[in-house]
């Protein structure tokens, strides 16, 4: 029996991009992990937190704490959700010492997916094959809050048949930003169109990211522009054979 890991798929994957969750589970199981899915999971609370509603975010965060109380490892296919839990839960509960203690324990147990593979599972080659020209979009939360830059690239480098091209300019926000995407939709649109231009310059036909929200933003712009480029989550690439 392998090490138990729990999936926190995130509300956006659960409701809009279930295949990402399944791909992540596939990869983990092939590596010998025993994967479970605590059913009471819902959301990390980020939409409320980012919109300034901390009390509401706190109640969602408490529910998260309860759901994952006994999970030794929680793997998440999202940089922004991982950052919310690992960095911002503590801010939410800084006035509640008992809950804060639980948060500090939780912080040690949550992992963004690519970080889990390279640092906990200690693997870079998951036996994947994906024949295509691919470019990688660094989501801002993964990049700047979690410091994730190398892990996804090392994983992609071991995918057979994959030709990885870097975006230039690199490290530019896709313009999603949660409610920013709708509150400042013109700006958000301008930002994602710049991203699309950079993608086209690489010649890539697939855009990969760690964050489903970035993928949703970029895919929405690619489709609107009628371009024949698709977006996929890292998990889906790594699950490909």
């Amino acid at each position, binding site marked *: 029996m392998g090490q138990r890991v729990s999936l926190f798929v995130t509300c956006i994957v659960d409701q809009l991009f279930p295949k990402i969750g399944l791909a992540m589970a596939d990869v983990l199981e092939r590596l010998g992990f025993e994967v479970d899915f605590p059913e009471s999971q819902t959301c990390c609370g980020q939409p409320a*937190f980012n919109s300034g509603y901390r009390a509401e975010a706190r109640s969602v965060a408490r529910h998260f704490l309860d759901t994952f109380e006994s999970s030794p490892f929680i793997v998440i296919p999202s940089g922004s959700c991982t950052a919310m839990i690992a960095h911002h839960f503590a801010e939410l509960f800084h006035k509640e010492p008992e809950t804060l203690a639980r948060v500090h324990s939780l912080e040690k147990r949550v992992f963004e997916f690519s970080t889990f593979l390279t640092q906990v599972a200690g693997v870079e080659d998951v036996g994947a094959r994906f024949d295509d020209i691919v470019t990688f979009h660094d989501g801002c939360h993964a990049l700047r809050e979690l410091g994730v830059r190398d892990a996804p690239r090392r994983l992609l480098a071991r995918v057979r048949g994959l030709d990885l091209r870097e975006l230039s300019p690199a490290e530019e926000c896709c313009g999603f930003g949660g409610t920013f995407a*709708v509150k*400042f939709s013109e700006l958000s649109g301008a930002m994602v169109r710049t991203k699309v231009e950079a993608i086209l310059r690489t010649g890539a036909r697939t855009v990969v990211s760690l964050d489903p929200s970035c993928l949703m933003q970029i895919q929405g712009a690619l489709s609107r522009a009628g371009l024949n480029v698709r977006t996929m989550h890292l998990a889906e690439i790594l699950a490909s054979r």
Partner: protein
Amino acid sequence: MPSEFHQKAHETLANANLQLAVFTATGRLKDKRSEVVGIGQLPDYQELRTQAHAVKRHAIDNLDHYLELFERNVAARGGRVVYCKDATEVSDFILALAHERGARLIVKSKSMTTEEVDLNERLEHHGLESVETDLGEYILQLAHQRPYHIVAPALHMTRYDVAEVFTRRLHVPNETVIEKQTALARSILRQKFLAADIGISGANFLVADSGAVVIVENEGNARLTTSAPRIHIAVAGIEKVIPRAQDLATFLKLLARSATGQLLSVYTSFLSGPRRPGEIDGPDEFYVLLLDNGRTRLLPDKNKRQSLFCIRCGACLNTCPVYRRIGGHTFPWVYSGPIGAILTPQFMGVQQEPDLPFASSLCGACGEVCPVKIDIPKILLELRSDVKKAETRDKQNRLEKLGFRAFAWLMTHPRLYEMAGKLLRSVGVPSIQAGPLRAWTSQRDLPPLPGRSFREMWRRR
């Protein structure tokens, strides 16, 4: 009803020429900075940032001590410190002094603080001639415009715009060659420097252990402003204090690199008091006006206090994907970009400009480039919370509050959340799109809805 901020942002986004100018200019400054702070060029960069943050933290946490120390040392060198609560006290002091000395002509070097207090307008209203001497600021003064960017004030203007302003205001033939425009400004301003009674400057740093004012520039106009007239008045926010001259070894290494990608700006002046006995030139009188104007409002919150660490390099503006597209004039106050977005609500009150903290995708690029490590994204998030608390208290935006309470309720009741998801997938996306849905689809397509949620598929595995 879109706010003024939204309206201005929309207009700037629609102006293709302006878009290109601002995006390109900031891109250049951003790249130039990157070239000189990398591990090969400045291996100590991260350490210097940490040091700068720590020194500023210490100075601001003990601000009263350092203000008094600064004041004593200025006096010891023959200068005088004047504390000013607000814009009126700044202009009142200068007007009184000018009147006493029979001064008519003032030359000014670049100072965002003097913009903040509308100094030129006030002085001119009382019959004084106050001339901006930084080239960009001079052009803006002639054009009656506000600075567009903390470091590059006329970023938004082309040579043709400058030619038009010069012809209209200076009554000179149309000249679009930039070198010639510069030469014209130089010759006009030279006469002003040499005839001026008072020179007014800002200050990048106020050095407490020296009673000195540090001014960083590239043109030489600040040197002339502070050396040619008989009276020098430096106007600076109280937060500009640093403890020691030795701290400049840290700050000066960060400032120019972060601002323009230069190793050092062309001129760094370290000025303490009027000229000493035997010195041939320099001012006979030296004043430092220490301005509050609301800065003390930012001190009580231990975390938000770091907003006052800013050394006005402009790096956050140059890297911000939002600023680079909406520019400086979209912002309501003299400080724009990410630093403006955190300063303005704290100075004015969050309900004055409730949009500002939300006009960000929270990408974090600003925090990454800030030489004094101000955690701008964290403060933006706190300000968002402050806005919503104020709205809740004043019973504004109740629908949105209700929406998020419903969100929280749904997310803490998994079965109801699951049902809501099923409902969404069976009903589909409404063809009448309103509110957030419409905002989304105005710019990009919606993702197709999957037949089943992840949890439904998981159960069937």
